[in-house]
């Protein structure tokens, strides 16, 4: 599963990075890399079974507590 994931992310990088390097869009490359790496790390953690915080549930609980619903 991890190998499949890495292959998918590799394909995304192969599609995007050469074009950005060719145009010398370094700032765009940095932002892309940050987002791409975030996606890769989170996906690997997800595949490894790491429990993520449930964002919507957390927001819902916060709103409930704040407004006493």
């Amino acid at each position, binding site marked *: 599963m991890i190998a499949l994931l890495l292959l998918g992310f590799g394909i*995304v990088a192969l*599609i*995007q990075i050469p*074009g*950005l390097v060719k145009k010398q*869009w370094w*700032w*765009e*490359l940095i*932002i*892309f890399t940050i*987002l*791409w790496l*975030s*996606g890769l790390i*989170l*996906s690997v953690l*997800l595949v490894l079974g790491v429990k*993520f*915080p*449930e*964002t*919507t*549930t957390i*927001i*819902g609980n916060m*709103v*409930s507590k704040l*407004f006493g*619903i």
Partner: protein
Amino acid sequence: MALEAGRISRFQVIMLMVGFIFGTSVIVSPARSAGHDAWIANLIGIMEALLIAGVFCALANQFKDKTLVEINDLVYGRILGKAFSLIFIWYLFHLSALVLTVFSRFFVTEIYLATPKTVILIVFIAVCASTVGRGLEVLARCSMVLISLCILVIINDAFLAIPTMDIKNLLPIVDIPVEKLLWAAHSAATFPFAETVAFTMIFAFMNNHKGRYAPLAMAILIAGLTLTLAVARNSLVLGSMESAFEYPTYLAIQMIDIGDTLSRLEVVVAIFFIFSGFIKVSVLLYGTVLGLAQVFKLRSYRPVIIPVGILMIILALTNVGSSTELYAFVNNEFPIYSLPWVFGIPLLTLIVAKLRKLPQTGGDQL
């Protein structure tokens, strides 16, 4: 270099907004907490949404060729403006993940029973990302074809369901406490009608700057009345059973059987759910990546489409534990949670812009 070269017409914006409002509401009826009075709550919700929309449309009219991110920069300055913009981008991003959650859960529960949610989400986001990458004009043209069909099918389904309807299912009218009805109406106003605040990232690319309220109001009315028809149909067909089902629209259409020939029409509903979900997620993805590109001063939003799409999938897979929690959030907390974005921040921005007499070149009024 302009981030978006394409321009879309008023009619295309209307169709895009109708598709956006349909979004998940085609399958998850708005104002469900009002029970068989949901159609009344829906109508009240439309009126509230028209008022809320007046605020962000006034803001968009004030800065006619600017997206909300550019407006924030002008009104609050670079640092505070970017902070407001990032908060708004989070709203679009989170909303998109919520839509994807509803979408994937529906398909895994009703249609592709053995397919993992991740696969459905990857395929869906790939199509949306591909469309967003081709620009706003392509997305607008898609909506013209897909959403016209969607409206026709919803109206047609309502007529085909007439033999299975029982008018007694709508009686007694307003037998729930008024505050519960108004809460359901507010819930419908914020999910889905007022979510059209996302179009503050798109209005700037209209080829006609003659006010944004008229097309938005028209879209809310077209989508709102069509959804009210669908909600009333669900109540008429399912009666008190409606609240027991997660996807009442799907079940109500399942019951259509005209002479043993015209049956199993629920698949058509699922297909149109794909269409409307595609429009909604694409608009939200477009708003998110365009917003990020403007905040970080990128020369194109295209390099960030796929990574943002991947992050949306991750959030959609992890943001909520169960469908019960998801719908509890949509009915109870979302009407409050979304208010700052759809009403509070646009109103504050409008007031600050008026006080600072911005824009200095003048703009159209509502």
